C-alpha cells in the first residue's frame, strides 16, 4: 500500500498543472454569456452548458492522453525500470497509476465545473440531484474505461508485434458476437434484459481491461512484446469467457416457454379451435414479455420469436387452422417477414414466407377465412398474397386521406376496410370511410361512410358475412352502441347509450345476437338484441358499478364480471355466467376474468363453448379453462 500511495502521489505531483488548467477552463466557462453569438437565452444556462461541455471534453481528452502515456510512455522512453528496479509490486505500480489517472480525470472535470456550480449556473434540470450518484458512477466508469482502453491500445500498437492482427481480428469477432446477441434480444423487445446483459458484459470487459493492464505490467515488465502478449492473453481470455457468458445469457433469456411466465397478462384467441396467443412477463427476465401460440388442450406451444406484431396483431384464420405474424429480420428499419403456423398439423413449426416489407408505418395482417390468403397493410399500401405460393395477388395504394383502422376478409376475393379520413390523426372525431377491395379485379372503391365517429371508437366486426358492424362510439364521456350497415355505413339500429357514470360493454353471441352490459347508479343489467338490432330482453344483475363482458362459454350464455367500484382491482370482481334465455346466473367465483381480453379486435365470430370463450385468467395470473359440466376450472398455465 505504501508503494501504491507513493506512485499515486508521484503521478499527481508530476501532473499537478492539470488541476490549474482545469480551474482556468472552469473560470473561462463563466465568460460564456459574453460571447456575442450566444447572446440569446439565459446566461446561467449558457454558462452551465458550456461548463459541462468543457468538463466533458477536458475529462475525455485527459483520460485518453493519460491512459496512453501512463505506462506506454515509460516503456517507450525505457523509464519503467525506474519503478521495476525498486521494491514496487506490479499491482502497486499499475493500480497506483490508474488511481492517479482517475483522480486527475475526475478531479480535473470537477474543477472545470466548480466555478459554474459556485455561481449557481448548473441548474437541477441539467443534473437532477437524485441522479447525481448514478451519474457519478457512470462518469467514473466511463473515465476508467477510457483510461484502460487508451492504455491497451497504446501497448498493443507500440509493441509492434504481429499479435496486433490477432487483437483486431478478436475485436471484430467479439463485436460481431455481441451485436448478434444484442440484436436478437432487441428483436424480442427484451430491453431490460438486454440492458442487464450488456451492463454486466460492459463491467466484465472493463474488469478485463483493468486486469489486462495489470498483467501487462506484472508479466511483461520492461519487455513490450511480452507485455503485449500478457495483456492480450488476459484481455481476450476474460472477454472471450464474458462473450460466451453473454451468448449463454442471450440463449437462456430467450429459452422460455409458457410455463416460464410469472402470470398471463393477455390472451388473444383463435375464433375456434384450441389455439390462443398468451403473453406475460417471463420469470427472472425483467420486463421481457414473450408471446406464445398455445394449444390450450394439449399444452403445445410455439414462441413468437422476434415477433413485432404483438399480442393483439397475430392474425388467425376464420376456421382457426392458421396463424400469421410478423418477424423482424434485422434492426430498426429492416424489413419484416410474415411467418405462419399450420395450427391443424400436430407437429407443425413456424414457416417463413417470402412476404416481407419495410416497416415504415402502421401495419396489420389479416387472414382469410380458410387461411389461404393474407392481406398486409403497411403505411399507405395494401397487398393480398396467396400464402401457399407467396404470390402477390393485388397491391393497391390507399387513398391519401384514409388511414386504415381495420380490415377483414368478407370472402376470399373481397376485403373490407375501415379508415379515417384524417391519416395524421390530428382530430378526435371524423368520418369513417368504408372501402372494399375486389381482389380479382384489383380494384379498391369506397362503398360508404359513417359520419362523425370518435377515433377511439371500437368496431366489432363480428359478422363474418360482412352485413353489419357493431360500433361502439364515445363522445364526452358517454358511450353509444349501434349496429351499422357494413357496406354503406348507414345505421341499422341504435342499441344502447350510457352516460359517463355508467360503465358499459358489448359482446356478441355465436348466433349473431348482441349483448350490451351496463353498470351504474341505477343497477346493473344486460340488454339482449337480435342480430338485426331489435331489443329482445333486459336481464337484471346484482348491483355493480363496473361490468366486463366475455364471450359465450356455454351456448346461450355470456360471461360477466361485476365489481362494486368503477376503479376496482380485479380481485374485487365477481364472475358469473348468465343464461341469456332465462336470466339464470351461475357464479364462477371471485377474480376470474374472461381471458379473451382482446376478443374485440378479432375479425371473426367466436364459437359458442369454444376454447376462447372458456378461457379465464385467475387473480394470480393463471390461465384456466372453464369446464361447464363440472362448473369448475382446469388450469392450463399456472402462475409462476
Amino acid at each position: 500500500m505504501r508503494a501504491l500511495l507513493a506512485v499515486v502521489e508521484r503521478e499527481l505531483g508530476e501532473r499537478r498543472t492539470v488541476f490549474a488548467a482545469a480551474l482556468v477552463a472552469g473560470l473561462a466557462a463563466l465568460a460564456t454569456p459574453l460571447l456575442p453569438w450566444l447572446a440569446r437565452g439565459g446566461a446561467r444556462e449558457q454558462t452551465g452548458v458550456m461548463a459541462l461541455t468543457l468538463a466533458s471534453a477536458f475529462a475525455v481528452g485527459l483520460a485518453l492522453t493519460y491512459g496512453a502515456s501512463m505506462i506506454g510512455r515509460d516503456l517507450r522512453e525505457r523509464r519503467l525500470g525506474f519503478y521495476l528496479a525498486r521494491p514496487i509490486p506490479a499491482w502497486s505500480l499499475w493500480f497506483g497509476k490508474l488511481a492517479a489517472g482517475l483522480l486527475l480525470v475526475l478531479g480535473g472535470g470537477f474543477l472545470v465545473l466548480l466555478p459554474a456550480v459556485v455561481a449557481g449556473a448548473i441548474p437541477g434540470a441539467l443534473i437532477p440531484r437524485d441522479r447525481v450518484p448514478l451519474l457519478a458512477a457512470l462518469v467514473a466508469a466511463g473515465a476508467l474505461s477510457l483510461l484502460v482502453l487508451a492504455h491497451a491500445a497504446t501497448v498493443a500498437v507500440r509493441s509492434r508485434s504481429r499479435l496486433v492482427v490477432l487483437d483486431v481480428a478478436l475485436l471484430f469477432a467479439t463485436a460481431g458476437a455481441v451485436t448478434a446477441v444484442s440484436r436478437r434480444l432487441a428483436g424480442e423487445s427484451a430491453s431490460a434484459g438486454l440492458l442487464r446483459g450488456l451492463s454486466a458484459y460492459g463491467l466484465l470487459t472493463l474488469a478485463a481491461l483493468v486486469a489486462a493492464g495489470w498483467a501487462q505490467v506484472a508479466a511483461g515488465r520492461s519487455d513490450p512484446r511480452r507485455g503485449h502478449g500478457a495483456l492480450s492473453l488476459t484481455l481476450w481470455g476474460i472477454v472471450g469467457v464474458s462473450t460466451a457468458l453473454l451468448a449463454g445469457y442471450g440463449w437462456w433469456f430467450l429459452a422460455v416457454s409458457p410455463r416460464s411466465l410469472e402470470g398471463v397478462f393477455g390472451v388473444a384467441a383463435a375464433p375456434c379451435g384450441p389455439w390462443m396467443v398468451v403473453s406475460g412477463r417471463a420469470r427472472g427476465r425483467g420486463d421481457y414479455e414473450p408471446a406464445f401460440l398455445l394449444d390450450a388442450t394439449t399444452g403445445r406451444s410455439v414462441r413468437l420469436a422476434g415477433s413485432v406484431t404483438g399480442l393483439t396483431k397475430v392474425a388467425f384464420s376464420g376456421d382457426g387452422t392458421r396463424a400469421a405474424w410478423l418477424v423482424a429480420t434485422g434492426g430498426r428499419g429492416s424489413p419484416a417477414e410474415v411467418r405462419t403456423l399450420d395450427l391443424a398439423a400436430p407437429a407443425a413449426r413456424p414457416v417463413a414466407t417470402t412476404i416481407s416489407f419495410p416497416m415504415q408505418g402502421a401495419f396489420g395482417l389479416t387472414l382469410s377465412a380458410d387461411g389461404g390468403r393474407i392481406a398486409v397493410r403497411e403505411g399507405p399500401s395494401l397487398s393480398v398474397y396467396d400464402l401457399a405460393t407467396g404470390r402477390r395477388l393485388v397491391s393497391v395504394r390507399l387513398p391519401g386521406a384514409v388511414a386504415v383502422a381495420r380490415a377483414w376478409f368478407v370472402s376470399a376475393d373481397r376485403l373490407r376496410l375501415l379508415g379515417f379520413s384524417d391519416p395524421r390523426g390530428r382530430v378526435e372525431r371524423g368520418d369513417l370511410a368504408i372501402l372494399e377491395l375486389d381482389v380479382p379485379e384489383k380494384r379498391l372503391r369506397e362503398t360508404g361512410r359513417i359520419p362523425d365517429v370518435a377515433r377511439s371508437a371500437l368496431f366489432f366486426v363480428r359478422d363474418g358475412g360482412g352485413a353489419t358492424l357493431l360500433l361502439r362510439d364515445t363522445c364526452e364521456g358517454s358511450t353509444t352502441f349501434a349496429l351499422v350497415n357494413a357496406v354503406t355505413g348507414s345505421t341499422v339500429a341504435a342499441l344502447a347509450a350510457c352516460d359517463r357514470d355508467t360503465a358499459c360493454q358489448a359482446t356478441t353471441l355465436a348466433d349473431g345476437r348482441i349483448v350490451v352490459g351496463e353498470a351504474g347508479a341505477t343497477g346493473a343489467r344486460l340488454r339482449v338484441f337480435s342480430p338485426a338490432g331489435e331489443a329482445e330482453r333486459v336481464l337484471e344483475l346484482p348491483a355493480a358499478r363496473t361490468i366486463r363482458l366475455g364471450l359465450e362459454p356455454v351456448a346461450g350464455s355470456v360471461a360477466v364480471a361485476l365489481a362494486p367500484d368503477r376503479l376496482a382491482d380485479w380481485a374485487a370482481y365477481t364472475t358469473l355466467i348468465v343464461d341469456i334465455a332465462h336470466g339464470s346466473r351461475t357464479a364462477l367465483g371471485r377474480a376470474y376474468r374472461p381471458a379473451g381480453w382482446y376478443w374485440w379486435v378479432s375479425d371473426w365470430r367466436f364459437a359458442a363453448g369454444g376454447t376462447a370463450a372458456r378461457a379465464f385468467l385467475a387473480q394470480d395470473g393463471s390461465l384456466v379453462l372453464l369446464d361447464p359440466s363440472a362448473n369448475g376450472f382446469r388450469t392450463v398455465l399456472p402462475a409462476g
Partner: protein
Amino acid sequence: MNPTVVAFDRVSVRYGRTVAVDGVSFVVPRGCVYALLGRNGAGKSSLVRCLLGEQKPALGSVSVFGRPVWQTRVAAMARVGVVPEEPDIPPEMSAAATIAFCARLYPSWDGAGVERRLDRFGVPRTVPAGALSKGQKGQLALALALGPSPDLLVLDDPTLGLDAVARKELYEELVEELADRGTTVFLATHDLAGVEAVADRVGALAGGRLLLDEDLEALKGRFRRVRLRSVGALPPELARFGPYAMRRGAFADEAVLSRFDDGAFAEARDALGIDPTDVSGMTMEEIFIALHDPGDGRVP
C-alpha cells in the same frame, strides 16, 4: 563461507529470432565486485534486466540472494541498488522529489548519506532531473542506489557518456562505498580501465556467449604477450601455454598466451630463444581486445 548473491543458470534471452544471450551461467559471490565486460550489443544489458527481474529469460533462470528473481523481484529489489545504463529518473522529477519518492519504498534509507553525496557533487535538489548534466544524473542515480544501503549494487554501464573526471569520481565514490560496506557489486561495462581498479572478478560476453568468468588477478596472471623473433609459424613448444591469438608484424609476430605459467615458461624460454624482455603482462583492456580480436587468427 562465501554464499552466492547472484547466479545465472543457463540464461538465454531472445528478441524474436535474435539470440541476445545464449546459455550463460556464472555466479557472483557475496562481497565480490563482478565486472561483466562486453562490447555494445554483447548482451550485458539483457543480463542486467534479467538480474533485476525486469525481463524473463527465454531459457534458464536468474537467482538473487538464492531465490529466483523473476518471482521474487519486489523482495529482492528491497536489497538491491541500481544505477541504470541510461538515467531513468522521470525528467520532470527533481532530486528532492525523487529522493522523497524512493525513501518511502525501502525499509531503511540513509537520507543523510544521500544528501552528503549530492552535496559533494553539487547536485541541485530542485532542478528537474531532465535538466541535470549527465554527470549529475549519474551521481544522483548512484546516490539513490546507495540510499537503501543495498546488499547488492548493480551498475549497468554507469560511466557511459561520462567524461574522464566524472568517470573517476564515480569510481572513487564506488570504491569508498565498497570499503565502507562490503557491498556486492555487479558491474556491466565496457570501461575496462575503470574496472581494473575495482573489480575482483570479471566475465566477458561476446555475441551473447560467456567467453570467460574468472578472478581478475588470476586472469591477468595467466595472460601474457610474447614477441616471437622467428617470423612464421607458431613454435610448437608454446602450445601448452594456451596461445590464444597471434598478430603478425613486419619485423616480429606477437602471440597472446592464455595459460602462462612463470616457472614452466622459464624452462621453455631458452629453448624457444625468447628473451625475458619479450614477455610482457597485459592490461585488462589488452586482454579484452585479444579476446575479441584474435588478430591474424585465433590459434587453435
